[in-house]
């Protein structure tokens, strides 16, 4: 069904189950360790063997020689693949990269050999016996050195309205600042893993991927197999955060070996391999120029971002939110992409905004200080209810931005904040408060589902949609239950299998709204079919307590399906409402931070996020998504950084001890408030993306609170204690 008009009232609006808090239906499996992740499938015939990847130890150049003879003779070894004996693949496609196709090295930890053995230990030991020599070439690894070679991109085109240069030159109050953000790692807890099974000319790949039809197309195309000969399963995924939007070497090499050996092959990347073999969020340099009148109204808004990626890669679109977040007549927003020979860049939670807001929202704090204005008030003054580049003819579909700021300020006790930095002391700690806006564009994707009412009266929902921790199982079940008038425990949700209808997958915060709409439309089709079988007019029926009701008549659903299950399929397709309306989720983050007067240790004491993201499908899982985003935002502010070795072109701190992520002791109780909002323009479910909203702006609220606590403004993330110690008055 095409969604191209604002949604009229519909059966998903009843509010009995959908939209109410509910614990995860996949919870009991996850807490008992019985939910199978990719590496853990138990096959009827227990004959799986183990793959182990050997990665390149240079960033750029060629393999001069590779000698696998010792590895081939090592105990337990069944197969060693290198570029010298690997089957030839089709060239790189948009969803996967061929493996072991030649001697050329494009990044550190690129797969150069793959060992398969009877046991994991044998495969790992044999990989160490492979002798490799390289011809190393010079590479470009440091963004600051390369940025001036950057070029505009199609992904994030430059825009300009009014006369920015004139307005900025004439602005009464201005800030002109450059912020930098480092390379960051998604660092989800489950390493990338795949098990490939080749049986009867058909390949089944159990893998950990966020968007199954991308993995499906990528794997099939690379291996030169028809898509109907390939099945991909990702029923449980141990986190992704964008890292699992790509097909890396593990499914491709495991499949190659499984086809060659006729035995299932399973391979997991080791944690240290992940940081250089897979994608990361690229570093940015961001130049922000804001000009305002004395009342704080923005007259000039300028944002230019530089980032780097391998040849043919994509920019980190950190300037993009600046096109939409604040008003102001004279604007210039630009993106430059330069070539770097670091590991390939990719998506990480809220690509673009997550780091764009780190810079923009600190620059707004700097502007507020220059104006002598409260930073909450500055943001309220610059609210705009339409796309500021296009004008009032392109309004926001919904935008409760000011309400978020006001609700947050009141709840958090913002009025107690002292505007002069270093004013509040609690023993040996300097205490400050910071605020930042939250903004994440709303994206919807085509998504399908199949629903089936079984003879015993329970509903089966099948879709390729994935649950990466986002709560898809539960939300989709709630939609089915609401639509068919069933209790949630009468719904069986089956996800993450390409045998099911193609779905949006999980990424860009589009999963719940898009896949949910697919399930909604499939349920609509099923309701019509059930009404027809009951002899009712489909336009006037309702479903409640396991019955279909029309006027004074009711028929039990089990009576309709007694002679056989009834099935329906449909998909959600989205028209041009995202063009006609600017669509985004909004929010406001408030942080209180303490800085130790003598050690400069930084502790987040409390934090509040207020979010307006359309209908909240399940407040339990939506809150958890926000907690996760807030925590990752604290990580971005205070600790997360992939350190580039400029000599060898790799990330030095490639494990979970050295790439620091927040732990229990770093995170206090965090508060989340969702404002009531329904967005008729976004989908029949009236929701907007929420999973990434939680991170956008968080880090800036922390950095602004650090400044308010001690008076040191750090423009080079992360804000670590070495950057502030000795720079503030005790």
């Amino acid at each position, binding site marked *: 069904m095409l969604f191209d008009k604002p949604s009229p009232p519909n059966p998903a609006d009843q509010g009995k189950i959908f939209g109410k808090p509910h*614990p*995860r239906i*996949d*919870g*009991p*499996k*996850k*807490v*008992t*360790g*019985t939910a199978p*992740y990719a*590496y*853990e499938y138990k096959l009827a015939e227990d004959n799986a063997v183990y793959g182990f990847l050997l990665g390149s130890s240079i960033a750029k150049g060629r393999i001069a020689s590779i000698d696998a003879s010792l590895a*081939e*003779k*090592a*105990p*337990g*070894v*069944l197969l060693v693949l290198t570029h010298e004996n690997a089957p030839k693949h089709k060239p790189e496609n948009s969803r996967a990269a061929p493996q072991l196709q030649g001697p050329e090295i494009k990044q550190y930890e690129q797969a150069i050999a793959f060992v398969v*053995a*009877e*046991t*994991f*230990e*044998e495969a790992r*030991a044999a990989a160490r016996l492979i002798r490799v020599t390289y011809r190393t070439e010079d590479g470009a690894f440091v963004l600051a050195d390369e940025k001036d070679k950057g070029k505009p991109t199609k992904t994030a085109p430059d825009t300009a309205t009014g006369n920015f240069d004139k307005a900025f030159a004439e602005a009464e109050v201005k800030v002109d600042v450059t912020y930098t953000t480092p390379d960051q790692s*998604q660092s*989800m*807890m*489950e*390493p990338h893993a795949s098990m490939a099974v080749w049986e009867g000319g058909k390949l089944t790949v159990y893998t950990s991927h966020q968007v199954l039809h991308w993995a499906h197309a990528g794997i099939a195309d690379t291996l030169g197999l028809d898509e109907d000969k390939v099945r991909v399963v990702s029923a*449980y*995924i*141990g*986190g992704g*955060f964008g890292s699992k939007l790509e097909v890396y070497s593990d499914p491709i090499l495991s499949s190659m070996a499984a086809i060659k050996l006729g035995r299932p092959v399973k391979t997991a990347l*080791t*944690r*240290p391999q992940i940081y250089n073999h897979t994608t990361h969020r690229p570093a940015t340099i961001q130049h922000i120029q804001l000009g305002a009148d004395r009342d704080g109204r923005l007259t000039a808004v300028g944002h230019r971002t530089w980032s780097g990626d391998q040849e043919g890669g994509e920019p980190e679109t950190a300037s993009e939110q600046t096109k939409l977040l604040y008003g102001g007549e004279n604007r210039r927003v630009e993106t430059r992409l330069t070539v770097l020979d670091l590991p390939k860049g990719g998506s990480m939670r809220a690509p673009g905004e997550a780091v764009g807001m780190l810079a923009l929202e600190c620059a707004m704090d700097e502007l507020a200080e220059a104006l002598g204005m409260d930073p909450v008030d500055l943001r309220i003054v610059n609210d705009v209810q339409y796309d500021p580049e296009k004008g009032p003819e392109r309004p926001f579909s919904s935008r409760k931005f000011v309400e978020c700021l006001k609700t947050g300020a009141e709840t958090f006790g913002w009025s107690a904040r002292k505007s002069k930095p270093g004013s509040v002391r609690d023993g040996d700690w300097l205490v400050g408060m910071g605020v930042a806006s939250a903004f994440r564009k709303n994206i919807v994707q085509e998504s399908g589902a199949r629903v089936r009412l079984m003879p015993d009266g329970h509903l089966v929902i099948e879709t390729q949609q994935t649950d*990466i*921790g986002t709560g898809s199982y539960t939300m989709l079940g709630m939609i089915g239950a609401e639509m068919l008038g069933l209790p949630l425990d009468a719904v069986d949700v089956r996800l993450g299998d390409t045998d099911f209808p193609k779905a949006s997958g999980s990424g860009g915060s589009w999963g719940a709204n898009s896949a949910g709409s697919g399930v909604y439309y499939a349920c609509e089709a099923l309701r019509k079919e059930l009404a027809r079988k009951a002899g009712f007019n489909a336009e006037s029926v309702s479903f409640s307590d396991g019955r279909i009701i029309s006027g004074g008549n009711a028929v039990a659903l089990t009576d309709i399906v007694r002679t056989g299950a009834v099935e329906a399929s449909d998909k959600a397709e989205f028209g041009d409402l995202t063009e006609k309306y600017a669509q985004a989720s909004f929010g406001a983050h408030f942080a209180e931070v303490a800085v130790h007067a003598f050690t400069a240790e930084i502790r987040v004491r409390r934090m509040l996020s207020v979010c307006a993201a359309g209908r909240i499908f399940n407040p339990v*899982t939506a*809150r*958890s998504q926000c*907690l*996760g985003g*807030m925590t*990752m935002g604290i990580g971005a502010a205070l600790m997360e950084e992939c350190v580039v070795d400029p000599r060898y072109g790799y990330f030095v701190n490639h*494990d*979970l001890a050295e790439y620091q*992520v*927040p*732990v*229990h*002791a770093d*995170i206090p*109780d*965090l508060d989340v408030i969702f404002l009531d909002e329904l967005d008729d323009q976004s989908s029949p479910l009236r929701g907007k993306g929420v999973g990434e909203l939680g991170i956008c702006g968080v880090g800036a609220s922390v950095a602004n609170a650090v400044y308010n606590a001690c008076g040191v403004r750090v423009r080079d993330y992360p804000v670590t204690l070495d950057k502030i110690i000795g720079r503030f008055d005790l």
Partner: protein
Amino acid sequence: MNSEDTASATPRMSVTLTVNGKDEHLTIDPRVTLLDALRDHLGLTGTKKGCDHGQCGACTVHVNGRRINSCLTLAVMHEGEDVTTIEGLGTPEHMHALQQAFVERDAFQCGYCTPGQICSAAAVIEEIEAGIPSHVTPDLGDVQFSDEEVRERMSGNLCRCAAYPNIIAAIRDVREGGKA
């Protein structure tokens, strides 16, 4: 190369572990970690491999009543020892109080770190009750249960989905409910 010939070329050792109350006899490569013995040889995949380096805590199990990172120890070092994994704490139909509390508090999202968090949490409650102090204990002679104590002691268990506040709440619920 014939795989049977090569398999015999890797030395093997015998070890007997008591896993979740059941004796398990294994003849394995001495390089097999306790974690891989559980996952790959005994089919107990509830214990997760997040880093294989003792950095994330996803592989936490109890050995002779103490929590350890099972990736940092070899299976053959545990002859005759008692191992309890997440599967030994409860099942979907009969969940342990902590498992129940984790579901009620939404103390996980992707679920991959969760078995390790729960195994750690069970041990943390016992460690505090046994009066074992931590880095944040104000009075080393008087160890009291508090959110700060729990956060400190759970900090070896990373959760990238960051269910941290909900995990603390779940542990608090179990402690206050006396169900641990």
